[in-house]
């Protein structure tokens, strides 16, 4: 079983694409689509990386991030924020709240894969680079 990634995103087709990409890179991807219960999911699954969308139903990704950082169980877990809003203010807020990385949509698949590998402290995948 590969290293665990928790993807918190409510767009089904984006979930499917990211899950496919990261699974082929050997990661185990859990997904969750609701902001209200996202922190509970993180606490119960103990992921090694969280990919967190900003615009979520229920609670915003910023609020989820704030709670993750405030929790004694997840203060240091790497979090990549994902958003269509690329303004500097959003980036600054995300980083101020403790996001490890900030990625805007749409993203290149290669950028997503490379960033996840970097955040997980891994190098190039063992198999041929596919996307």
């Amino acid at each position, binding site marked *: 079983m590969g290293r665990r990634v928790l993807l918190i995103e409510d*767009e089904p*087709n*984006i979930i*499917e*694409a*990211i899950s*496919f*990409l990261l699974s*082929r890179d050997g990661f185990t991807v859990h997904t969750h689509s609701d902001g209200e219960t996202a922190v509970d999911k993180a606490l119960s699954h103990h992921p090694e990386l969280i990919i967190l969308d900003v*615009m979520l139903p229920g609670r915003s990704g910023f609020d989820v991030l704030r709670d993750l950082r405030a929790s004694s169980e997840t203060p240091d877990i790497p979090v990549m924020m994902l958003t*269509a*809003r690329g303004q500097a203010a959003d980036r600054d807020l995300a980083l101020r709240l403790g996001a490890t990385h900030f990625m805007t*949509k*749409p*993203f*290149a*698949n290669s950028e*997503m894969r490379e960033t996840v590998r970097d955040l997980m402290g891994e190098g190039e995948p063992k198999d*041929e680079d*596919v*996307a």
Partner: protein
Amino acid sequence: MSSAAKGHGRRIRAARLAAGQSQSGLAKAVDISPSYLNLIEHDRRAVGGRLLTNLARALSLPVGELTDPGDPRHLAALKSAMDYLALPHPPERPEDFLASSPGWARIVAGLMERCEALEQQKEVSGQDGATEEELYDLISAVTSIRSSASILVEADGIDKEWQRRFAGNIHSESLRLEEQGQGLIERLGPSAREAEDSARRRLEIALQMGPLPEDEPVALALESRGADLSDPATRAWAARIHSDREQVPAPWLDNIGAEIRDPFNLAVRAGLPPDLILRRLAFTDRHARPSGLIIADRSGAFSLSAPPPLFLIPARSPPCALWPVFDALGAPGVPASRKLEFPGGASARFACHAFATRQPSGGADAPVLTEATMLIMGDATDVGDVTRAAPTCAACSNQKCPARREPQRR
């Protein structure tokens, strides 16, 4: 007791407290009993005349400060604030607060005005907020499509089931994109105002297609070039050009020759209004120069922009102040001419002639309307002084221009 006089007591009390004076101390200073002062302060006794003057002196205040009931707008704002906050038990009556603390009342009133302005802004931008959400949905759809398409194109050894799924995702997101795009177009699509502007733009394009043939009716010529003759403003322009033709017949234009360089002299010779001659020369096919017209109103806004090729009108920035149309606006009835050379050399050289007229729009109190007409004619010759100019300062290389508003952008 009048309501205005009622406030005097409250204001006296507020002033006394602000000055740190005791009731007995102030009463002694004005030679009345503390109990009487207490009645005054609670507006149970009227105060005026010499006693009021003495109280004001004892409090080191002008009498007016004790009698001024305060700005009624502040009172209204305080009442609004109470309603807004839905306070079940307000700390004191707004009239008392206004009387006792006019400075703070002013601050609260200012905050309330700001609050109401922000609420209004929120209502107006509520629609923009919904648009932001729709745009976010669009970006999400694009993200799905991009990611899914990249997987299909770049991933080796992807099995058929995954291929089918990602192709399906692309299809469904494309439909979503189409739906949302159409929704946005409907929401943000042309308003009635823009429909008017669209008709104007069609007219301008029709006029810019080249001179109007003198042997063809104006309306037909414009319509064949795409102008919207159902639009009242377009029809008015067609009628105007037709009227100009009747006043200045085409054969007259055939004989002007080199006098075309001085349309104002032509106007004097013909005994006709200069702006009429400018319009006539702009749209006729009886001379070979590329030509066009700009009409500006008193504010400097262009109500018609039909320049010749290479004479660019900036879409957003204010245009060059050296264009003689602005000279004309500043001095109605006085001809203004200038030969301008835009970036591009001789081929972008234009003889510009402008004239503004003033016309009452109604009775003695009605505004006087100013209309400036600028004829623009291509003139690649070296005749006359040439001023280097451009559509805007940012595009202009004339560093010595006294009218420069912003630096040139290189």
